[in-house]
């Protein structure tokens, strides 16, 4: 018989013990009172305010999890190395490139995607449509999410601040001039709604 099969693995710390009794006394001694840990790779995310639990592989990116596994396909992959901004999501209030972040790092974090921003009726959606701040549309969700993160932190951004915030987002159709107009329009609407 393979000797390894006679080993008993501690679910708390990974130590191996020689018998069931030895494991039992090890657990009582070293880990008494603690609840059993979950399996490796299980993460809890608050995606667009709703709690989700996933079992993820260690090499999955946040983009892959949300786009391919969850099926929220708004975030897009334009480049493949954090150069384009099309996969931007808001993680714990900050815009991040979801293709550059491992899903397993996100346990307990909140994630906002373009779908969530649209579902809550954010004025950016309408101002993007009205101002043709899109052409082929592939990079558009990344711009919308980055703009939302900007407005969350700075509800009244100047044109320079908008350009600075969005300068990491690439648009090959080159719709660039329309974005500051759309973001300003959304900011004005939000201001009016507060009054």
């Amino acid at each position, binding site marked *: 018989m393979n000797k390894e099969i006679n080993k008993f693995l501690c679910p708390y710390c990974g130590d191996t013990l020689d018998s069931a009794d030895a494991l039992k006394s090890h657990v009582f001694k070293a880990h008494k009172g603690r609840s059993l840990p979950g399996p490796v790779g299980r993460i809890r995310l608050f995606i667009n305010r709703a709690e989700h639990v996933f079992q993820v592989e260690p*090499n999955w990116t946040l983009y892959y999890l949300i*786009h*391919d596994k969850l*099926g*929220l*396909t*708004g*975030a*897009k*992959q*334009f*480049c*493949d*190395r954090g*150069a*384009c901004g*099309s996969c931007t999501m808001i993680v714990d209030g900050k815009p991040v490139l979801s293709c550059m972040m491992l899903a397993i790092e996100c346990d307990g974090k909140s994630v906002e*995607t*373009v*779908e969530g*921003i*649209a579902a809550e009726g954010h004025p*950016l*959606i309408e101002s*993007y*449509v*009205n*101002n*043709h*701040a*899109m*052409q*082929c*549309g*592939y*990079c*558009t*969700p990344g711009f*919308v999410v980055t703009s939302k993160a900007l407005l969350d932190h700075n509800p009244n951004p100047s044109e320079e601040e908008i*350009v600075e915030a*969005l*300068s*990491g*987002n*690439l*648009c*090959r*159709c*080159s*719709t*660039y*001039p*329309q*974005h500051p107009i759309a973001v300003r329009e959304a900011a004005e609407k939000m201001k009016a709604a507060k009054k």
Partner: protein
Amino acid sequence: MSKHPEDQTARMLEMLDNLESDKYQLKEYKFIGEKIPRRIDGLAKASGQADYTMDIQLPGMLYMRLLMSPYPHAKILKMDTSRAEKLPGVRYVLRYDDPEVMKADIIGRVAGFFGLDQPLPGAAHMEGELVGAAVAAETEDIAEEALSLIEIEWEERPFMLDPVKASEPGAPLTFPERYIDGNHWNRGTYDELLHGDMKKGFAEADKVVEFSFKRTANTWVGPERPCGVWKWNGDCPEIWLKHQRIHLPKSRISEWFGGIAMSKIEIHSPYQGASFGGWSQIDWNLGPLWCAALVSKRVGRPVKYIFNRREDFFGGSMDEGTYFVKVGFKNDGTITAVDATLYHVNAIWPVFSPSLHLHDNTRITNIRGHSKSVWVNKGHTVPTRCEMLPAVLTQTLVLDRVAAELGMDPTELALKNDGAMGHDMEWVNEEKKKRGFPVRDSLKECIDQGKAAIKWDEKWHKPGARKLPNGRMHGIGFTWAHEWSDSLGSGEFAIRIERTDGTAALLGMGADNGVDADGTYCQIAADELGFRLEDVNYNPHVYRGFYRMTPDSSTNMSVNGWAVRHAARILKQKILEAATSPSSATQRGSFQPAFPDTKPEDLDISDSVIFSKLDPDRKMSMADFVRLAGAGGPFADDEFLGTRLGWSEPLFASSYHVQYGKHNPVNPRPCFCRQAHFMEIEVDTETGEIFVTNVVNVNDVGKVINRLSCEGQQYGGSIMGVSRAKFEEIVHDPVTGVMLNGNLLDYKIATMKDLGPIGTILVETGMGYGPYGLIGIGEDIGTVVPGLLAPAVYNAIGKWIYDFPITPAKILQALGKA
């Protein structure tokens, strides 16, 4: 053909191959020409709900990746795929020497020019070519890993990267499987004496100048990478494909596997991350689709193939090449002769010579152009934004060079040489009259408006003469061309009136490339039918069997616009006839018309309401008109209640348009509408950096249909143009032939910070051959603007830099600082 003056079918046929002005324009427009507040695709795109082929996942779908050649020119001698086959998660490894692959001959060709020799070749003619093996696995990562486990014995061959050197006698063959006696593609060699007598032209000149320029490899950078999904439903394929010319792959697919009936092929064209022509001009990416189809058949699961970002860089824009120009001119600015030669790199579609735009646009009496398609060990080059790139680059550099040699204002030189096909403006104006157009001076109108907007008269100066307070040198440049919409081909459209609410659904399959063409077709249909805009809708993504003209960028409105208009007019005629005639006799008699005792010509439609022109109180909404079919659907169930109301026949019309444009050999149509572009820059002579501070685009689009969309092509094209001129270059290692910067960190494209303001001015002379006097705009600006950087730089530093992109290093070199 009916002789009735209002017969819409007769009018449609009359307007085919439009060589004259649109005789039957609407008297008033409600939506055409307006700033339409909502894009038809806007909400889906902004909210992330627009599906692209990259987003498609089907139950049980496998992912396919293909092997890339590590050498620029090599043949596979031996290949061992056993380790790849054993990797867990790998479901199939397709090899180049599979009997079915070997016998699959040419699987596609474009316009009779060129197709793939094999879907999965055994020899590579550029580094990165997809050859040898295709792996289908449960995930993309597994497929990728499996590729790395394939062991190959290669026969390396000599390679060439420079088109001029590759043209020399005795140069190593770059593609011996195809070109056995030199690196030229004979069908790609053009020697066009466009008109005149070259010897005479140069003899008449006061001065003759010769120069050469170079455009290095650059590419489209489509945001969505090439990809496709194949699923077999029995013997019927269902396909999702990123492709701009969706009817081409469908017709190719019908030839595969011994033939598949076109009517069995269901093809989806989801939204697509822009192509700018790109891969869609050639069928190179159909090789992987063919492999996906075969593997899907063998494994019994849907298969998706995906290019990676680097693989998208293995095709480029067809302005790449080395150009040689000789130009003769008189001291008053009259150009007497132009002779241009282009060594064209891997042009898969070298349809024109570099002198074509000078022929189209000017009165220059002697013009010759020569282009030689040379094959080197790099990717194919194809129309990217437009195949006119070499011609407009040549026009800009020739005209601006002549103006500089004479110290003349280039806008004056433009007006002095403006014309068409070697004729002066007097002849051109006669042609306008003959063809029923208004006689306006389009170039002068464009130049006047552009000069005023950029303050040209205050700002233009002698080269290298204006230093700014910030220490940089100021430069300003100008170029121009005609607008174009002259792709030859045909477009089809149909419109159906829905039951229950009477809204109109446009039917036509094409690819959305972002120009909001779909919304614009709705504007035309709404105005023509007399419907509210919200009552006209269009979903182009699903198979409907009517194929739009492609490339649908500059020809959206000039070809498909006609088809929509014809269909709408024929349909409106049908609606009014149905409203006034008893229809569908049953065994219990006919249904009474909605407007009894009325003639169709006494009715009209406005705001989706049919009304009597004689008695406007007699009216009925489209919804009520079709609702008379019955609340339960398209049948008259009111009869159960003992009443007989009405019923209308299914309301549907299809139409089409065909044009040869200026390629018509019998009566080639001269180009009347012009565009003018102005660019202001600052050059830092210490670092060589160029700052583009201001661009003004003036486009005579004949007639504006969708204003925001036109402006989008202006600023979008300008930014892409400046990006190409300043930054973009695919670099190959001369020692290994390997591409060095096939990613978006090392291949720079413009960001939001790279340009100053862009002025967009639209001129409407009504001199386009499209419906309502319009002409295309989609391809034009992004194609014309790149060349404009050279005259702007010349104006700033007094040096011509004839090597695109114009990088800081080249500026410093020109200034003798590097």
